Structure formats: structure tokens, C-alpha cells
């Protein structure tokens, strides 16, 4: 019978990504609830020394597939290696992060294995020995609770920034196991030809701890500098509403909402955003929401923990000055 939890680690250029610690921590909690083992699965090139880090967050075993062909993620290669491992080890649960890479990987893996999956989940639990997941749908306008009764292994990805990272226990160690890699070069049809780095140094909105976002109330692209100043000061990334993006003020990659990014930062500051339903859907899992808008009837205030009814062009620069007192 299928046993144990797999947590699929994610690395970039040999560094473990934060979402990995989230799913290894969550995988530990689930493995405990099931009374089973947690195995972290790490693919890459020259990454074996990183296996220990995964033990600190709760992995009992770490399966390491170390191969030059796995240095950079490609769907072909990663899915092939992981599908083989799943068939061999027969885990009951496979967890991944709902990052760009994780979503691509897990979607194809579920098809390869012919099993159902839950993407971008915000909670997992074990009820009467049964694994369940909570998934927002319609970008958060509704929530579903799902089970995987006809499907083994049970596969799901966790939304970044949602699962709590456990305090690392550096005294923990894991059994590190070399995983076999048999990749037929001819079967690999895709390759990463180039990587264009974002030089801004800003954290992507989906992974950002804080976001300062501007909407139609910004009146034009030239005014975003007041948001950038506040964002730089508090270590936030800058987002935008659909109307600001559609107006060409900000790039598509900055859009928060149902046809943009779904975000879960600790702090979301919405400036001059009225709160169209498709925007609210994309940011309602933020932990603390601040709305700054001069229209007291703007729907955004119904979602906000803190609201300021005033002109953002007065409030935002003043807020930038005020927060300096606390930094």
C-alpha cells in the first residue's frame, strides 16, 4: 500500500528556494498526522550537499537525483525522473510548491501518472486518515475542499507564502539516498536556451512578503515613484491593478488579480485601487490589507484591515516619512 509523503524540493542555480522550506515543513506536519515518513526529493546538478538543509525542516529521507542534465529545470527531464521515483517508492502523498516551476511540473506529473491533483492549495489536513486540501477557485471568489479518493498518489501544490516554515532543527539529519537518473538525451525535446535575469532585484509578487500596489487612482505611470519609494523603504514589491496595466502604466507582470497574479503577502497596501471583484480575488489571502483611497465607498475598504480615506498623493509620501520612525 502506498505509504509516506514526498515533498518535491525546488532549487535554482544550486540554491534551495523558499517555497521548498514551506512544503517540507508542511510535509512534516502531514507525515506526522498520517504516522508516516517524509521524503524530500531534490533534483539538480552538484546539489547533494544541500540535502542536509531539508532534514533541518523535517525530512526523514532525501532522495537526490544529481545529474548535469538536471541542473536547470525542464519539464521533460524532471517529470521523467520524478515519475520513476514515484512509481518505485509508491508514496501516498506528493507535495510541490505552486511556483512557476512547481505548477508546470506537477501538472504534467499528474497526467503522466494518470492521477488527479490539486493546484495552488492554501491548506492541507488529514481527517480520519484521509488527505484533504483547500483550494481557492475563481481566483478566490469561492473555496473548495477536495479529497483524492480515487487517486493514488494524492498530488497537490501549495500556494507560496501560505504554509508556515518550521523553526529549523540543525540537529536533525536525514538518510540521503542517491536516486537513479536514466534520461535518454533524444527524448528531451525542450531546453533552456537563455535566461534573462530581472535586474531590479525585486522579489516576484507571488513570493513577496510585502506589496505596495497602485490602481487607476495613480493617474499615470509617472506617479508610481511615490509607491516605489515606500516599497524600497519597507522591502516591498510594487504591484498594479488591471486598469493600470491595461492603461499601459505598468507591465503585465505587475498585475494582481484574476487575470494576473494571485498574491499572499504579509502586508498588501492598495493605493488608489477601488477594488473591482477581479482584483479583490487576487489579493484576499494577504495577511494584512491596507487601503488608501479618497472614495469612502470604494469596495476595497470592505476587505481592508486598515483603511485611510484620503488622497493617496498626500497619504503615501507622509506614510513613507512616518514608517522611517519604526525601521
Amino acid at each position, binding site marked *: 500500500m502506498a505509504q509516506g509523503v514526498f515533498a518535491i524540493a525546488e532549487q535554482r542555480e544550486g540554491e534551495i528556494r523558499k517555497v521548498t522550506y514551506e512544503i517540507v515543513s508542511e510535509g512534516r506536519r502531514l507525515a506526522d498526522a498520517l504516522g508516516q515518513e517524509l521524503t524530500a526529493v531534490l533534483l539538480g546538478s552538484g546539489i547533494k550537499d544541500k540535502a542536509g538543509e531539508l532534514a533541518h525542516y523535517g525530512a526523514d529521507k532525501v532522495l537526490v537525483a544529481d545529474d548535469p542534465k538536471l541542473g536547470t529545470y525542464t519539464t521533460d527531464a524532471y517529470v521523467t525522473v520524478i515519475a520513476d521515483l514515484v512509481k518505485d517508492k509508491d508514496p501516498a502523498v506528493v507535495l510541490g510548491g505552486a511556483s512557476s516551476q512547481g505548477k508546470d511540473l506537477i501538472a504534467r506529473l499528474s497526467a503522466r501518472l494518470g492521477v488527479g491533483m490539486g*493546484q495552488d492549495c492554501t491548506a492541507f489536513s488529514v481527517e480520519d486518515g484521509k488527505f484533504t486540501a483547500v483550494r481557492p477557485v475563481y481566483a478566490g*471568489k469561492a473555496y*473548495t475542499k477536495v479529497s483524492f479518493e480515487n487517486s493514488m498518489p494524492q498530488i497537490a501544490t501549495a500556494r507560496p507564502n501560505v504554509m508556515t516554515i518550521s523553526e529549523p532543527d540543525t540537529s536533525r539529519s536525514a538518510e540521503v539516498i542517491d536516486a537513479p537518473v536514466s534520461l535518454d538525451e533524444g527524448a528531451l525535446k*525542450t531546453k533552456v536556451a537563455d535566461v534573462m535575469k530581472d535586474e531590479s532585484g525585486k522579489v516576484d509578487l507571488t513570493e513577496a512578503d*510585502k506589496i505596495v500596489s497602485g490602481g487607476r487612482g495613480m493617474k499615470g505611470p509617472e506617479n508610481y515613484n511615490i509607491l516605489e519609494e515606500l516599497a524600497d523603504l519597507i522591502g516591498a514589491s510594487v504591484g498594479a491593478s488591471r486598469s493600470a496595466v491595461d492603461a499601459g502604466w505598468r507591465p503585465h507582470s505587475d498585475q494582481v488579480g484574476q487575470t494576473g497574479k494571485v498574491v499572499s503577502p504579509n502586508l498588501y497596501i492598495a493605493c488608489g485601487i477601488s477594488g473591482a471583484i477581479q482584483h479583490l480575488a487576487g489579493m484576499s489571502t494577504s495577511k494584512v490589507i*491596507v487601503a488608501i483611497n479618497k472614495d469612502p465607498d470604494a469596495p476595497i475598504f470592505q476587505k481592508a*484591515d486598515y483603511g*485611510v480615506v484620503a488622497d493617496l498623493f498626500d497619504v503615501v509620501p507622509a506614510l513613507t516619512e512616518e*514608517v522611517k520612525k519604526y525601521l
Partner: protein
Amino acid sequence: MNIIACIKQVPDTETQIKVAPDKKSIVKDDIKWVMNPYDEFGVEEALRVKEKFGGEVTVVGLGPKRVTESIRTALAMGADKGILIVDDALEGSDSLATAKALAAAIKDLDYDLIFAGQRGVDDDLGVVGAALAEFLGIPQISVVVKVDVAEDGKSVRCNRPVEGEVLVIESSLPALVTAQKGLNEPRYASLPGIMKAKKKPLEEKSLADLGLDSAEFGEEARKVKIMEMTPPPERAAGKIIEGETPEEKAAGLAKLLHEEAKVI
């Protein structure tokens, strides 16, 4: 170069979603159904590739009869023909079943490139594209904002933005590409386009036509069961920050963010 664009219909993004009394689905009355916005980017890109290389664009949709309307929209934009997979037994199918039906309809067509939206803005799973590629045995390139087909029509280069960087991915053809916002600005159907679309071939296929067993589709065959659907969790009523001037309000807000919310 022959291209396929897959489409689904979803509630317009302005729709207020209400949970149905069965607590497992949404209330479907009064919904404005539209082509999934990400699929629209796929249709547009298919047309652009065709305009450059020649060939045909086939639009493949799956769902109830109303999906015909979205296929006609794609035909009016310039696609050449449409296929609608329509069968009562499909109602409630999950992503893998959907992909299986699409694969059955597509596998015998002559194609070089398939476009699909990166996800449906309804169930937000983003699995159908990947699963369709898997079932057809071709590579996928997901969430793409730029597509360059090589002059010889044998390979494609795509820009795929991921956290903090853009990957340029090269693949042999045939391949499946999922479209992200930013790929293009979909055109509007012109009046002559709409007139022409009425005469373009639109074929309907049932599961039996595709040689599929209806027992593998629908609610009962779902591999992931919806136990319960609920409205989003309510957020507790927030505080409106009082103050005589914007500066006072800003000061009050900063203090609360530091002392109460502890986020600054």
C-alpha cells in the same frame, strides 16, 4: 503550418460567484459565459503564426452547446474551422478527462503547434494544457509571453517569465504552448469576419464519435472529489484611520502597522 487553439468557456471575470445549495458547485443562472481570457491570447497567437507561415487554424472547444458561440468568435477572428466536443456525459469531468477527450479529437489532425490558455479562470488548475501535451506525447511550454517559430517551421522559442527571470525555452515541433497575458492583444472580430464565420465548418463530436467510453467522464469519474464549496472566508471588519489631516492619518496608520499588525 497547421495550428490548433483550444478554448473553454468561463464566467466573465466580473461575475459575482455564488455557491449553489448543493455546496459543491456554483449558481449558473445569470452568468455571462465568455471565452477564457487566456485562451483568447492563444487564439490570437495561432492567427499570427498562421499569418506568417500560412496553413490553417482549428479551434477545438469542449463543453455544452453554448461553447459554440465562443468557437464562432474565434472563427470570426480568423480561425478556419472549429470542433466542439459536446456530450452530456462530459458534465462535471475533471482536467485529466477533459484533456483525454481533447487528445482524442486532436490526435489524428495534422498539426505543428497547439495553443491553450495557461489556466482557466474558473477552477484555476492549469492542468489541461500539460495533460493534453502528455497524452499526445509532445512537449509543453507553459505560461508564455513571446512565441517565435523558426523560419524552417521545425522549432519554437518561447519566453516564459518565472519568479525574477525570464526563461527562453526552445522546443522541437510539434509542441503545446500555454498563453499568458502579455503575449499579444487579441483582435476584435470584424463585421466581415463575423459574416464569414457563419459559413466556416464547425463540427460536433460526441464521446462515442471519438471512440471514448463515457464511463471515464463526468462527475462520477473525477479523481479529485469536491467535498465542499464555500464562499471565501470573511475578513473581520477593518478600522478606518481617523485624523484631521492626511499626515495625521498616515501617522496613525504607521503606528498601527508597527504596534498592532507588527508588519513594519
